[in-house]
């Protein structure tokens, strides 16, 4: 293991979140404690409504926990100005949103002073040709959009990348490209990558650690191979068997 794996980057301590919906109180995240190390991949897996995306949103303070705390480099998230925190803990959504204009305009969105050389490097890093910068962002495929969105996030040189089902709307070939990209970037840049997925096979391919959530609670955690191939709980076993079928 390289030295980059030793540091704890993110930590949740008894984190919970309640929201009000149609007059009812719903607990989306419940008593989640976990540590996320530098240079690792973490899969958040579980059935719909398990709180995977809700937990992800707490990690870069797009939402606020109602209980517990999230820490980034051993300081509460509130210690950092939100804009600064989110440049270090970047988040990508299931449907990548690209702003009107060219791919170059989108890469300039975060850092206005990016040179053409740097833009070329960012695109190459996500497996796209440097000439891709001049393409209209509206006219590229779903997989390419996701890669441009990743390049845009990388322009901020983040410590952590949060990915909310990044391959959910992609075809198998594009999904595989994105998975390979995630693995490569995590390794090359020593990123901490936390990814929400419905797909146990994807989690197995990505490896790392897996957090299995049900109704906002952590039901099983550990090495992905162990959690997904030999789960301890019936809940996890049933879900994984169903999804793998």
């Amino acid at each position, binding site marked *: 293991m390289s030295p980059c794996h030793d540091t704890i980057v993110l930590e949740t301590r008894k984190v919970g979140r309640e929201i009000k919906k149609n007059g009812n109180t719903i607990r989306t995240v419940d008593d989640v404690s976990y540590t996320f190390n530098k240079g690792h991949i973490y899969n958040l897996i579980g059935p719909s409504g398990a709180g995977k995306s809700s937990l992800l949103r707490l990690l870069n303070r*797009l939402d606020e926990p109602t209980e517990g705390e999230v820490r980034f480099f051993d300081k509460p998230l509130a210690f950092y100005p939100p*804009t600064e925190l989110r440049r270090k803990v970047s988040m990508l959504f299931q449907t990548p*949103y690209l702003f009107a204009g060219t791919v170059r305009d989108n890469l300039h*969105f*975060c850092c206005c002073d990016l040179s053409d050389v740097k833009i070329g490097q960012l695109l190459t890093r996500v497996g796209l040709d440097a000439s891709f910068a001049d393409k209209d962002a509206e006219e590229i495929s779903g997989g390419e959009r996701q890669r441009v969105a990743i390049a*845009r996030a990388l322009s901020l040189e983040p410590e952590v990348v949060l990915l909310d089902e990044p391959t959910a709307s992609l075809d198998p070939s594009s999904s595989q490209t994105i998975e390979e990209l995630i693995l490569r970037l995590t390794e090359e840049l020593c990123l901490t990558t936390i990814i929400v997925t419905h797909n146990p096979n994807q989690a197995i391919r990505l490896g790392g650690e897996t957090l299995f959530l049900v109704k906002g609670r952590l039901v099983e955690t550990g090495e992905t191979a162990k959690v997904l191939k030999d789960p301890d709980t019936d809940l996890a076993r049933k879900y994984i068997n169903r999804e793998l079928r």
Partner: protein
Amino acid sequence: MIETGYLQVLAAAALAALAIVLAKVKSIPVGREIGFGTVRSFVQLVAVGYALEFIFNTRSFWLVALSVIVMIVVGAYTAAGRARHFTGGFVIALVSITAGSLVTLGLMLALRIITPEARYIIPLAGMIISNTMNAGAVTFDRISSDLKDNRLAVETSLALGKTWRQASLRFYRNAVKAGMISILNFMKTVGIVALPGAMTGMILAGASPLDAVLIQVIVGYMLISSVTIASIIAGELAIRRFFNAAEQFVG
């Protein structure tokens, strides 16, 4: 020159009756509304006519102020009805309409365009307040729908380290522009597509067309000023309701 009296009003009511008949013939279900609106507008306007006569004759500053306050409160209440997905619409509308009205009327008084008399203040305040009310309502509506429809765009910006203001700037600008679009269109087409009400009224009342035009130009400038002020303030205050101090989208 028209001799205006209740007899002429009664004769004009035949036009409303014609509208009711047409609606009935074509089975368009607005007959009751037209009938109710015809009676209601008559009662409201006659009542306002008597009230204005009374206010003009008493020359009381407080009565003028009270009239303007009532108009502002009713205007704010109406505009606030468009404040979907955020709270505090009434207060925001109240602030924006009041600012648009007072700044514009104050400047008109300071520049001696009008004198501080009820016969100027009340009708001009009425025009300003109705226009700022509409501008505020449109601004509210646009902000609410744009931010809701573009949640992903806003949150993508926030997630990439932008401030709430940066993330929502284009929606704020679009909403303010939408609030102003009616008066902007009016200024583009005034005199070509339609003769505005104030000018038409003056001409019908016997004023020279040139005098009526000059008054109308002043009214146009007054409205663009008040609507701009009100739209900017309404947009500025409304959009803040969608974000909190932690730069989170809470709309």
